[in-house]
């Protein structure tokens, strides 16, 4: 099995963070932190817009990842994909009104035998997200497992 033909695949996309999407997200999560939903409270802190929760990164990275998932080589693997590990490094805070540009690149792809003897494929994707002022908002590593049959 060829396991290296997706390494180096790279996609990028923009995502504009809306206050409404932040509110939808935190409502589903049952998160009542006022930094996300209370405009007046946040304005009183620094005059800016409400913040996005750290793991909102999953959303602003999604358009770039979606392009990758729909790539013909990668899309075959998606039905047996589960998330193995996830790492975020947060820089400048993401806030309502920000335009986030994300680049996603496949950096690793190899086979690994699990405890029950199945051969899984491991895929690592790195994303870099910057805001409209070229400030680094987040870098992430997605470690995905393509479960063997």
């Amino acid at each position: 099995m060829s396991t290296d033909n997706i390494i180096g695949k790279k996609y990028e996309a923009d995502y504009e963070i809306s206050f409404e999407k932040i509110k939808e997200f935190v409502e589903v999560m049952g998160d009542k932190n006022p930094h996300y939903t209370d405009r007046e409270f946040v304005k009183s802190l620094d005059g800016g817009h409400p913040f996005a929760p750290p793991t909102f990164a999953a959303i602003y990275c999604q358009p770039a990842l979606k392009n990758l998932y729909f790539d013909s080589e990668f899309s075959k693997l998606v039905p047996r994909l589960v998330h193995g590990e996830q790492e975020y490094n947060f820089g400048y805070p993401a806030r309502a009104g920000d335009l986030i540009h994300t680049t996603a690149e496949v950096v690793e792809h190899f086979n690994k035998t699990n405890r029950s003897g199945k051969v899984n494929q491991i895929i690592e994707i790195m994303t870099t997200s910057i805001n409209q002022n070229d400030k680094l908002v987040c870098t992430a590593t997605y470690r995905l497992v393509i479960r063997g049959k």
Partner: protein
Amino acid sequence: MAIKDKSKIRIGKYMPYFYAGASLDFNLIHIDREFAQANGLTDIILQGMCTMGLTAKHIIENDHPSKMKTFKVRFLHPVLPGDELNFESEINDAEIDVEVTNQNGNRVLRGKATIR
């Protein structure tokens, strides 16, 4: 000295659908039982990023979200709708170790965050 914190959440029956709508993660293993079973799972499973998000919420509570500098997790066991998740964390200076277990005592997530 280490500070310990605990919280508990029940994952509702429709949580994978709600999270799919909120997060744009419409991978079919989260929303289509037949598809999930045809691909070797017992049922639809919750998005790992949802479990990670709930864990971040446990850590940040009502503090400023910028306090989270890094956050790394391993997903150890699938989370199913109806599961009851227990979050336990321990803070040592700027490092937080966190573990999430389900109602059967299975560890579903283990992670580490650093705070500023």
